[in-house]
Structure formats: C-alpha cells, structure tokens
C-alpha cells in the first residue's frame, strides 16, 4: 500500500474509534445540538423579535455560535484520552502522530458540522432570514471555515491536555488564533446573505485556504512533539 493510503487508513481508525465511542455515549452530540438551538434563542432575544436589520447580524451570530460549538468539542477531543489514561495507548500504537491528529481533527470537524446542520436551518426559521445565493457556495464557505476552526481547536486541545486548568486555557489559546479564519468566514457569509456570486467571495476563500494550508503545515511539523513525552 502506498504511504498516503496507509496514512488515510490510520486516520480513519482514529476517527472511527472516536465516532463509535461518541455514538455509544451520545451526550456530546446532544449537548452540541441543544447548544446550537439555545444560541439561536439567545441571539433572538438579544436582537429582538422580527428585527428588520437581522441580516446585518446573521453572519456574526452564526459564526460566534459555531465557534462556541467548537469550544464544546475542543474541551474533550484530546483531553479525554489523557483523563482516561488512553494517551499512552495512542503513543504506543503503530500509527503516525500526523494520522492521529488528522483523525482527531476530522472527528472535531464532524461534531461541529452536526451542530451547524441544526444551527443554520433553525436560525433561518427563528431569526427569519434566508441566503439569497447558491447554496453550494454557502456549504463551501461553512465547510472551509469549520475545517479551519476544527484544525486549530484540535491542536489547542492537544496542547491543553498537559495543563490542569483546561477549561480556562482552551479559550485563551484558541480565541486569538481563530480570527484569522473567523473574519473572512463572517465577511463571506455576509456577502452570501446579500445575493453574492462566487467572484465576490474569492478573496475570503483564498484567505481561508491559505490559513488552512499554513496551519496544516505547522501542525504536520510540530505535532509529534506534542504527543510524545
């Protein structure tokens, strides 16, 4: 088998392990879905019912909610392995550290996507708005933005597993790193609510893609130092 196939297979093993564990427990998915619905309600109260200027706030409301959905998953993705003592099993497994990271980042990405799938339609109903652009562009913007947040958040989660006060350190570390992707994602979503075509959001997509490549490159080089003592 080629090294790429081996790598993908290893990453899949990690992802499958986490998904199977989560499907058995389910509480993380339930918490994320409940949070997505509650955040819409909270923003609805804050903005006022049937606010005529809701479209101005929707991009920020959605991405702030997605960011906090991410925070819920960052606090568990690697920390759980440390708390339960499984981290040594991961270290000893014949799996490359990069594949472990990729599997964990994909797991975070899937959890965040599940939350977003509930967040966006419910916000369209509760806040009374719709995207006037091609829905494939909406999916593209959200997938790229969520992928960036999942990659950064998984790395922060891996670093935070060595720290005692994890709940405090994870937001303190991830919030200053995430604006690099959050700002272009909010700008692109704002354009999509105003009937924009793909040409209008290309600069934001390029920025997000550059951010993703940069982060993956940094993590590729450094992750083994995080995992192994």
């Amino acid at each position, binding site marked *: 088998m080629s090294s790429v196939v081996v790598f993908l297979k290893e990453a899949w093993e990690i992802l499958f392990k986490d998904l199977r564990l989560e499907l058995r427990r389910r509480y993380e998915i339930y918490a994320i879905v409940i949070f997505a619905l509650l955040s819409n309600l909270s923003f609805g109260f804050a903005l006022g019912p049937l606010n005529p200027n809701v479209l101005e706030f929707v991009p920020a409301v959605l991405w702030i909610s997605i960011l906090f959905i991410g925070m819920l998953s960052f606090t568990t993705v690697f920390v759980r392995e440390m708390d339960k003592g499984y981290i040594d099993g991961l270290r000893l497994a014949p799996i490359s550290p990069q594949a472990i990271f990729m599997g964990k980042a994909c797991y975070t990405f899937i959890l965040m996507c599940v939350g977003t799938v509930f967040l966006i339609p419910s916000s369209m109903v509760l806040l009374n708005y719709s995207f006037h652009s091609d829905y494939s562009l909406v999916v593209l913007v959200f997938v790229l933005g969520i992928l960036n947040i999942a990659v950064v958040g998984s*790395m922060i989660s891996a*670093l935070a597993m*060595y*720290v*005692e*006060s994890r709940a405090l*350190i994870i937001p*303190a*570390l991830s*919030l*200053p*790193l995430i*604006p*690099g992707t959050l700002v272009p994602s909010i700008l692109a979503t704002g354009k999509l609510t105003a009937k924009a075509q793909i040409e209008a959001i290309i*600069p934001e997509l390029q*920025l997000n893609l550059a*951010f993703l490549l*940069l*982060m993956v490159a*940094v*993590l590729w*080089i*450094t*992750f083994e*130092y*995080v995992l192994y*003592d």
Partner: protein
Amino acid sequence: MKSQPTLAGIFLINLVALYMIFIWAPPEKSLGDFYRVFFIHTPSAWVSYLAFAITFSGSFLYLKTAKPIWDLYASSSAVLGILFSLVTLLTGSIWAKVAWGLYWNWDPRETSTLILFLAYLGYLSFRMAIAERERRARVSAVLGILVFVSVPLSYFSTVFWSTLHPMPLLPTNRLQLAVDPSILLTLAVSTLGVTLLFLWILYLTINMYRLTEAI
C-alpha cells in the same frame, strides 16, 4: 565591566533619539506636534515583531536541539514582546484619537495588533499552567511556533483589508506618508535606540533567569 560601555552607548543613542523626537524634528503639517508619538509607536511595533520572531526561532531551535537556553530565549523574548506591543497599542490609540478622532476605530491593524497581544498573553499563561520544566519547554515551543501566525496576520492586515492605517513599506514598496527627510532620520534613530534597548533588556532578562535557575 564590559557591559558598562554597551549600556552607556545604548543610553547615549536613546538620549539623541529623545532630543531628535522632541526638539530637532519639525512639526508635521496637519497633526502639528501630536505626531511625535509616532516615533515611539513605530519602533515599538517593529521591536514587538522582532521579539516574537525571536520567540518563534527560540521555539523552533528548542524542538530541534532540546537545549534549555532556547526555551529561555523564547519565553524572555515573549514577555518583552508583550510589553512592547502594549506600548504600540497605547501609543497607537493616542495617535488614532488625534488623527482619526477616536481612541479605538476597529481598524484592521489596531484589531490584529490587539489579537497578537492577546495571543502571546495566552502563550505566557499556558507556560505558567505547566509545572514540569522539560514538558513546559517542549509543549510551549510548539505553541510559540503556532501563535507566530498572528504576526504576519497583523503585519499584512493593512494589505488584506481596507484600512485607515498607512500601508507597510513591504510589500507595497511605497512610502505613503509625505514626510520631511528629518522626520525619516528621527524615525531611523529612534528605531535603532529602541531596538538596542530591547536587546539589552533581553540579555539582562535571560541572565536573570539563568542565575535564578542556578540558585
């Protein structure tokens, strides 16, 4: 004893810089004497980038060699970078009030510099939260490389997004401020003075930590 002439030289250069800033440089056409804060703001911004670049390099070298000295460089430089970026933020706010009317305008450069400041504060608090020395150095080195992403984000923010702030000379290759040559010379001297001051404090800080560890 060797350090005394060096300190005297740095003191002298900074004294000359202060003279040029407050007496020698002429008032600016539109901002009058208020613009003089620029001679502290710009060198502080440059030095904060330099400090964070040293943190990045120290972190990278620690991961490569596992020598504790590189961790010392990384952490000491991060502390000073935070101080200088705080000076950049404060002087930038004063300048913004004079030039744009508000202390805080949510300009991309202002905002990205605040993010940079917070990112490195997070780096320091992360270091404080790990007790074991070798583990702290290793994991912080990874974070030191990761948070460096905020530096190009801050530097190029004026290129990517519409801004009130002047564009950087690199990569735009043009100086947007129409300025008197004496102002440019004053900026060069004050930048040299602040850079040397930073390097001197960094040297002192590293020596202080070395002695503390030896004791």
